[in-house]
């Protein structure tokens, strides 16, 4: 069922939704960007249409909603522990189709990767509903069409905002009540069908261990600076590390947190005793690239990368992930010719 809502009336709908849901959406923080007098666009709580930035790509993905940057798992006190409280609030997230598809990837990692589900993830994830924002133009660095993540059917509400009106398709019956007074319309969602850049992901069988030592990775040893921005902005990077925080005077009392980690950042592969098995940045780039477009697909039949282009947007060294895939294709071609 689709409805058209006057912009001026949409905040009433948001208020009604907020009786049951916390609402997250892309929002602009004035002058909070990395460089002076620039804004930071990221996901945060909103309560009105005015606060939602429909026209910008957020710097960070919405993954924080289910995978917080810092998350206390439990508190310990000698031999006892108390699991951190789950506030149990339901969440509505305004996001783009590629980002819904990114949540699918997170689900694979946290819920289907091995025999145990990650309960800290699951209890947040279960409460999330999606409001997909129509995205038919994309941005310069997007390549979702190449990754097959430009469309999604997994949403409660699909929304398109024009100057005067907001068009909504409601799939979730529990939410239709809120729209009951609105005029129905024949709005059907549209999806982007062509990005400004395209890339062909290599076939699984074409990626062999011979590529492990390919020259293409060496270039990244010289270019990458290991800052980890590509990891922190990525909607599917889901690595974390554990941190035990304890009282200075009694280390048996404290809390355990999990905190985001990133494969490009120093220390990621460092083990007790100092052994570190991916010390060069080229090795880290290889690991990340092949995880995003090879290993993940081998295990779950879909690529991890959703083609949002954020890693390209933020890299201070102008490293493009599409560029890396293209170099890999070239290396495969050369390998075949030589072989």
């Amino acid at each position: 069922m689709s409805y058209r809502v006057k912009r001026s009336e949409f905040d009433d709908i948001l208020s009604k939704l907020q009786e049951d849901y916390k609402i997250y959406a892309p929002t602009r923080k004035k002058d909070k960007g990395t460089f002076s007098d620039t804004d930071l666009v990221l996901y945060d709580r909103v309560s009105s249409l005015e606060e939602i930035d429909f026209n910008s790509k957020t710097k960070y993905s919405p993954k924080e909603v289910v995978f917080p940057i810092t998350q206390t798992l439990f508190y310990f006190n000698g031999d006892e522990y108390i699991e951190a409280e789950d506030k149990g609030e339901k969440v509505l997230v305004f996001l783009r189709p590629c980002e819904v598809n990114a949540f699918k990837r997170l689900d694979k990692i946290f819920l289907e990767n091995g025999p145990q589900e990650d309960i800290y993830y699951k209890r947040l994830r279960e409460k999330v509903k999606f409001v997909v924002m129509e995205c038919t133009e994309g941005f310069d660095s997007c390549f979702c069409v190449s990754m097959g993540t430009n469309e999604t059917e997994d949403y409660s509400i699909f929304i398109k905002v024009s100057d005067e009106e907001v068009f909504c398709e409601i799939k979730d019956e529990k939410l239709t009540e809120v729209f009951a007074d609105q005029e129905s319309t024949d709005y059907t969602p549209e999806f982007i069908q062509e990005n400004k850049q395209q890339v062909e992901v290599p076939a699984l069988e074409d990626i062999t261990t011979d590529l492990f030592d390919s020259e293409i990775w060496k270039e990244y040893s010289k270019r990458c600076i290991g800052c980890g921005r590509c990891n922190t902005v990525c909607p599917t990077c889901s690595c974390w590390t554990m941190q035990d925080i304890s009282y200075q005077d009694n280390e048996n009392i404290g809390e355990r947190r999990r905190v985001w980690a990133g494969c490009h950042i120093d220390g990621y592969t460092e083990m007790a005793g100092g052994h570190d098995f991916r010390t060069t940045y080229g090795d880290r780039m290889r690991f990340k690239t092949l995880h995003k477009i090879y290993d993940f697909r081998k295990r779950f039949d879909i690529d991890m990368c959703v083609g949002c282009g954020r890693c390209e947007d933020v890299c201070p060294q102008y490293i493009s992930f599409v560029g890396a895939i293209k170099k890999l294709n070239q290396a495969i071609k050369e390998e075949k010719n030589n072989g």
Partner: protein
Amino acid sequence: MSLNVKEFKKNAYRITKDRGVTALRVRVPGGHLEAKYLTILQEIAETYGDGNLHITTRQGFEITGIPMTMVEEVNKKVAPLIEGMEAGIGVDIGNPEDGYPAAGTRNVSACIGNKVCRYAKYNTTKLAQRIEKNIFPNDYHVKIAVSGCQNDCIKAHMQDFGVLGMDLPVYDAYRCISCGACVKNCQKRATGALEFKNYKVVRDEDKCIGCGECIAKCPTNAWTRDASKKYYKLLIMGRTGKRNPRLAMPFLEWVTEDAIIDIINKTYDYVDEYIDRSLPKEHVGYIVDRTGFQVFKDYVLDGVELNPECRVAEHIDWPGYKTNVSNNFKKVGK
């Protein structure tokens, strides 16, 4: 020929080594100009001068080789620049066709600032223009430069007043992933004001110089800047010259733009009260040497509203060297 040299020099013309030949100093407040003005400069240089332009250290242009007899015509030709770059930013310039009304207070220079540079904290051109509007035209000899950050590419440390941009870092522990980028960088390239405690970062406020490097390096925007206002460091009384070349020293830290403007304006009153009028001119730094820093400080801070974050220097002991103490040197010849 007959010439009122003092009036002539105030008109921004130079007495050169060639009798009857002068050079005009064109001001470019903030060192930033529309490219269209270059055509006018070219025309003046080729029609009235020797076809050359000299780029001054203060980011102006000096048009050389102008016969003194042509000055009135040159003033008419340069009027669009004075109108655009002085009257256009609110400077009370008089009739632009009469040329520059003063030359003592020098062009306010600026680094490229945050229009372009990632490190700069503010629009340096705009601040330079605001200062220019407040202090020009004036005959007192004052040099001011503004730099976007503490790298100080414009060499604000060589000025009577140097303004450097500062960031007040704000930390969101939730967003921090303990990557160590800020801590390492602060240790190696700034002042070591950051350290880890329980995997999160603690900032030593006394050590922090507000360079903003932590904000620039952070991969999660755990560090952002306090965006409620702009903060600056104000350096004072640096100079070159024959007696005691020295770098400017910090007078105020974490100060606001409005306070800086008030202080610079008050400095002109201070100069007016204490200048040695037996000299043809006296630089403000030497006046501060004579009255002492405390007299200067009390004078220029009187009635100025300082923000609570601002830190004020108790004393200033300028470094540099006295040129008349040279017992370090041994003559090569007998």
